[in-house]
Each structure stands twice: as C-alpha cells, then as structure tokens.
C-alpha cells in the first residue's frame, strides 16, 4: 500500500494561505448596506458622505499603520494636500472636473508622501513620530502663510465643482450625488488596497511590521517597501482629502490639523488596525457616537472618548474587530482548515 501523495496544496496551512485573498461571502454586505442607506435615510446623506470619506481616510492610514507598522501622527498632511489641491485648482478656475481632480489630488499627496517618506523613514520610533508631527505642522503653517493661494485661516469656500460625468451636479443641500460618488470612489480605493495587502508586496509589509530585522536578513528592500507603502497611503489620503473638498465645496486649515490626524488614528484603532474592515467598523462606531453625543454633551463625549482610548490601549489593542474575532474563536470549535 503506497502512502497517498501529499502535495503542498493539501497542507491546511497552505490551503488557508492560498485562500486568504478570496472574496468571502459576507464581503459584499457593507456595500449593499451603504446602498440601502442611500434609499432608507435620504435626510442623513450629508452625514453618510462624511462617514464614507472618513472610512476612506482611515483605510489609507491602515495601509501604513496596520500593515507596514509605521506609527504616524501626521496622516492629515496628505489629506490636507489633496484637499488644497482640489480647492486651489477650483477656486482659481483652473480645473474643476471632479474625477481628474481627484487624480491630481492623489498625485500631489503622493508627491508629498514620497518626498517626506524618503527622508522621514530613515528614522524610527519617537523621532519618526516627531517628524511626522512636525511635517504636518509645517504644512499647516505654510498653508496659513500662503493666504493668497489658500485663503489662510479662513480657507477657500464656495468652490465650484463641475458635475460628475458632466451630468450629476453636486448640491450642498441634497448631497445625493456626493454620496454615490464618494461610495464609488471608496469602492475603487478599497479594491485597490485589498488587492495590495494580499499581494506579495502586502505580505512583505506585514513581515516588516512583525520583524524588521529578519526582513533585512532575508534580503527584502525594507526602506523601499516602506517608502512605497507610505507614498501609496498618502495618495489614498489625498483622494480622501480631495473628495472631502469637493463634497463640502470648501477647504480650511482644519484639514491639515493635529485634530484630524488624531481622530483618524483613534477611528482606525477603535475598529481594529491591520484588518481592512477596521476602518469601516471604527468610522461607523466613532461617527455615530460623535454625531449624537458630541453636539449635546461635548465634554462628556471627550471624557468618554478618552476613557475608551485608555481601555483600548490597556485591554483591547486590536479594537472592536479584535474583540469580535476573539469572541468568535471561543464560540466556534477550531476547524482544521482555518
């Protein structure tokens, strides 16, 4: 009797590895829900648009923070770069076509990301944290100073953005177009990030996050990978900023501020970083809570948020999705193939 031939594809770990990138049955659900939201809550489309943009921004941070393990406090620098690109081009009447505008925003933000990443990512730890913070503060100051172009402290308002495909107009009071437009852009960007993190490139980013020294030892071009992921993340953050400027028809210094950078960090960690869908869960949890609480009880909201952060940092550093995963593992008996 000959033993059965065991190829590599029969090993459970190999099967799991090969199947990891496959689309799971539940993955279309968020998108269906987002579409359902459009029809179910026409009054809340403004809020929905803001929420989708936040998800996109958090997703960009997930790429660097969750996958490449770069702790940055300056992600808003790229959001702002994208927003001001759209804003300045539209205000000066140079370019106001939305989709190409987003591509330009992504390009500018990516250039900022590449430029700063090339120098910043030579450092690590506290120095890197400080440098990302300083770069963002520097951009904010620069935007404040160049008020001939950026409107300074007041920002640029009533931006005239051309209709999408020349047909669907942006209406600030009934943000139907904005909502669907942002949803479509989010879907495209999400597909891109999803493909990226499951690609060999994404795997090497995880390797760098888990053990930089070993990745150096196996000959991976660590610096180049980090800079590339930083640049791509900056481009996506730029898209988020650009689309924010288009949807709201204004840009201000707040797009570049520490507040925005800290908020997106909180959102991502709340949802669970390094998980793709953490951006969705975190943004929904945060935005819904803040929408209903922060206006009525601003101080209680800040106190609760602080408490939440402390608890997450101490007991649940994988966020809501991490808690859900742990719970699922306990409930479900271990399967051989997973």
């Amino acid at each position, binding site marked *: 009797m000959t033993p059965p031939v065991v190829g590599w594809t029969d090993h459970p770990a190999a099967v799991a590895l090969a199947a990891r990138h496959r689309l799971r049955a539940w993955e279309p659900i968020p998108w269906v829900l987002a579409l359902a939201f459009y029809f179910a809550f026409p009054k809340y489309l403004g809020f929905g648009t803001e929420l989708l943009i936040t998800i996109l921004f958090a997703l960009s941070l997930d790429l660097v*923070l969750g996958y490449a393990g770069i*702790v940055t*406090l300056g992600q808003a620098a790229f959001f702002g770069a994208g927003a001001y690109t759209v804003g300045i081009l539209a205000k000066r009447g140079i370019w106001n076509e939305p989709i190409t505008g987003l591509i330009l925003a992504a390009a500018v933000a990516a250039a900022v990301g590449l430029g700063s990443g090339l*120098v910043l990512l*030579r*450092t690590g*730890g*506290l*120095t890197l*944290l*400080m*440098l990302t*913070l*300083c*770069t963002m*503060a*520097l951009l904010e*100051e*620069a935007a404040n*100073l160049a008020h001939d172009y950026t409107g300074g402290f007041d920002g640029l308002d009533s931006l005239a953005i051309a209709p999408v495909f020349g047909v669907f107009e942006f209406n600030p009071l009934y943000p139907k177009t904005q909502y669907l437009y942002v949803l479509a852009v989010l879907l495209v960007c999400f597909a891109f990030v999803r493909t990226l993190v499951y690609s060999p490139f994404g795997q090497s980013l995880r390797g760098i996050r888990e053990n930089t020294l070993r990745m150096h030892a196996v000959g991976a071009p660590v610096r180049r990978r980090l800079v590339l992921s930083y640049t791509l993340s900056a481009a996506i953050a730029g898209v988020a900023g650009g689309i924010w400027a288009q949807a709201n028809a204004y840009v201000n210094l707040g797009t570049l501020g*520490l507040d925005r950078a*800290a908020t997106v*960090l*909180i959102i991502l*960690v709340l949802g669970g*970083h390094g998980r793709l869908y953490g951006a969705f869960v975190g943004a929904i949890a945060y935005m819904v809570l803040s929408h209903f609480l922060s206006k009525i009880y601003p*101080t*209680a909201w*800040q*106190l609760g*948020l*602080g*408490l*939440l*952060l*402390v*608890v*997450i*940092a*101490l007991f649940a*550093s994988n966020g809501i999705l991490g808690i859900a995963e742990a719970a699922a593992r306990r409930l479900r008996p271990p399967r051989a193939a997973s």
Partner: protein
Amino acid sequence: MIFGVDVASMVLGGVAAGMVLFIVSVGLSVTMGLMGFVNLAHGGFAMLGGYAIALAMKQWGLGFGPALLFGFVVTAAGSAVLERLLYSRLYRAPELDQVLFTIGLVFMMIASVTVLVGPENQPLMLPPFLRGQINLGITQYRTYSVALIAVGILIVSGLWLVFERTRTGAQIRAAVDNRRMAESLGINIGRLFTLTFAFGSGMAALGGGLGAEFLGLDPQYALKYLVYFLIVVAVGGLGRVTGVFYAALLIGVLDFALKKYVPQGGTAFIYALTILLLLWRPQGLFGTKTT
C-alpha cells in the same frame, strides 16, 4: 545703542520663556529616555499642576510660593499613582498603544477640568513684588521674567547636582544609557522610574504654574503646547538634563525673536529647523546614540 537694548530685552524674554519650557520638559525627557515611553500626557500634568496652583491661590488665598509647592506635591503624588496603576502596564507595549493611552488620558484631563473648573482661561495673580519693572543697569525689564530666569538657573543647577553628584542621579544615568545592564547591577528600575516620573510630573506642574502668566492656563493647554515640549525633548536628546536645558533656551529665544521680527511664519521656521536637525542627528543635538 537702541539696537543693543532691543537685543538684550529679546534675549531676556526668550530666556525666561526657555526656562519655563525647560522646567516643563525636563521630566518628559528623563521619563522618555528611561523607559522609552511616549508620554503625550505630559502637557496634561503641566495643565493640572497649573490649575492646582491657580486654584490654591484663588480659593485658599495661598501665597505664590506655597501654592507652587502645593501644585508640585499634588501633581507628583497623583502621577505616581497613575504610573503604578496604569503606565507601568504599558512599558513593554508597542508605541501605538502608548500613544493612544496617553492621548486618551489627555482627553480625560481636559474634559474633567472643563467640567470641574470651566473652559475659560484661569488668571494667575502674581504677588506684588514680582510685578512691574526692574532696573538691570543696561535696561529696564519685567521683574517676573528676571525672577523666572533666576528660578530656572537655580532649578537647573539643583537638577544638575542631583543628576551628576548623587547616587540616585547616577542610577538614572545608568538606566538611561543601558537599562538591562543597570538592572543586572541590582538597580530597582521600577522604583526608580516611579520616582522620576512623579518628580518629572511635579516639575511640569511647576512649569505650568510659572508659565501661566504668559502661556495662559485653560484646559486646551495640555495639547496646545505639547508639540513645543516634544520638540525641546527631541532636540535636547532623551534623558539629558543639560541637553534639554540648552534646547529649551535655544527654542525659547528663537521663538521669542521670530515672533517679534517675523510675526508671520516664525513657527514654521522652528518646525523646519527641527525636521532638519532630527534628520541630521536623530538622537538630538545633545544626545548620544543609544541602542
């Protein structure tokens, strides 16, 4: 001659501001150097201490000196409790968790102070002998700034003595340079750290009270000046008392001068300078390379 007086008053103002920066930041530098802990809540301790001082003076009619002492003791004691209960759990945690934890702590401090005291700026009444001007020979200058400089010099000399000449100071220096080795030699790092942490927070409280006169004192203080404190620490080098001192003076004078001559864009210059400096010397201007 006018120019000379101008420069002298600028240097005096800048040095006074630098002293406050130093007093607040020195604790941050030592705790970061000692444990590698990214403590973004340090500005919060300065804010809480400033409030304790301002309220002690307003409510209980305490003098400026006793109030400063009170603020120091209260903040140091409170931070020691926090350190034992919460901070110590995160020493080996990833940086991200430390950042989140301390940001959360700052939010809670800001919210509590807003609820308990109110969101408005707390005026701090200086005693009469610190108000007005003093004649320094070449120029008249604000008494309080001169007093600040004197206090700052006293504190830095005291700290230098403690750091360089006492057993505890030697233990701290040893632990900053090589924690494992220090631990192997039987130095109780945990206790040492609680001690330094409490002392550093107490100093931050002093700085919060001393600087309230020109930095203001409201709940947002905790975040508003955090970037400045971090810059001072990063430029001065982690765990270096003298480094932080020179860095604080440098930033204080630069900031003062830039605000005066380039009111627009002075801050941008400091940020740019910090970036360049950290790229050139990631360990700071006065730090030595540690592993």
